[in-house]
């Protein structure tokens, strides 16, 4: 062509952002990262407090996800998920030695923070088991149910979720698959999720989950039970620019 002139290099106009502009820009960055709002300062933990179980587990997942991005083998569930949420149960109820059989332990979770439009790919309930000597060296069956409907004059309506078989002397994190409960909790978004856990011996007798070595809210922070949900966005949300 003709008329080629030297074009001066483009210089982005630089100026200091005002206080409100900086806060607006931070909110925009947060929205792009998928964070809900400006983080509020949290009370710094006391030096003697142990790290809690759910954050420890989630930190391991974070590193596994980073390894996946770097070409490592995809960890279970993470390959299909964009969002993972952990929940610590807010209420724990026991029906143990003071009551007739069956004995059970129940956990209530507040799921109202699950964002809309997220499809569940998997869900787990994790509870730590210590070795149990009563009974010694025997097989235990741990079953998990969702509490669908409570009744004042009879047993609650339950929905079976998972069954795990282990030995009384086993120790470690017991993972129960509660994915089947996700259909219902997405429908009843404003209700708490109730999970009930039963332990039976090989001969069919109900057993106090605590005596079986299963730790509840009274356990050390690093061994308290929690729930994990794996989600995948149904579609990318359209954000209106400010």
């Amino acid at each position: 062509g003709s008329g080629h002139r030297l074009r001066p290099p483009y210089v982005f106009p630089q100026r200091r952002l005002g206080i409100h502009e900086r806060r607006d820009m931070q909110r925009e960055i947060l929205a792009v990262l998928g964070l809900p709002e400006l983080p509020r300062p949290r009370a710094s933990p006391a030096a003697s407090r142990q790290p809690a179980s759910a954050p420890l587990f989630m930190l391991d997942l974070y590193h596994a996800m980073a390894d996946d991005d770097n070409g490592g083998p995809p960890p279970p569930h993470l390959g299909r998920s964009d969002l993972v949420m952990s929940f610590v149960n807010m209420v724990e109820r026991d029906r143990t030695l003071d009551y007739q059989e069956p004995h059970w332990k129940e956990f209530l979770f507040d799921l109202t923070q699950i964002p809309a439009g997220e499809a569940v790919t998997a869900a787990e309930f994790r509870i730590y088991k210590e070795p149990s000597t009563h009974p010694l060296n025997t097989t235990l069956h741990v079953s998990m149910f969702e509490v669908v409907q409570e009744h004042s004059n009879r047993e609650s309506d339950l929905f079976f979720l998972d069954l795990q078989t282990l030995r009384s002397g086993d120790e470690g994190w017991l993972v129960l698959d509660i994915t089947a409960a996700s259909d219902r909790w997405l429908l009843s978004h404003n209700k708490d999720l109730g999970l009930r856990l039963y332990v039976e011996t090989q001969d069919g007798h109900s057993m106090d989950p605590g005596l079986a070595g299963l730790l509840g809210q009274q356990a050390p922070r690093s061994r308290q039970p929690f729930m994990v949900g794996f989600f995948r966005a149904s579609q990318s949300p359209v954000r209106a620019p400010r």
Partner: protein
Amino acid sequence: AVRPLKRKRQLNKTNQMQHSNKHAGVFDDGHGSRGRDVCRRHELYVSFRDLGWLDSVIAPQGYSAYYCAGECNYPMNSSMNSTNHANMQALIHLTKPDVVPKVCCVPTELSAISVLYYDRSNNVILRKERNMVVQACGCH
């Protein structure tokens, strides 16, 4: 349309076209000349600590806000990761600068980041955001 050249001129032109400097007076080569930077990735790091977010954001400590900037002028070399279409558009832009826009320096490869944070109910959340970090830039 390119006019067919006479045979003799074609031979001469072939010999003469081996050196890009032959066109320096006609085309703007843009290969870092006159102090301009060619299209490439620039590094920029946004610290969550500096933003005061580390109370709620557990990991990472910050975000690699790489960006692409630089000139995409004809002729483009291999480091500019240009497509055949970009090469053609850059050439046509020289002939019709008011009609055909310049080729852009843009991300050609993006990777995801994961963010671990507390929500307002103190639940721990792990979120993966795709196409967030620039890995490579090119002229497209």
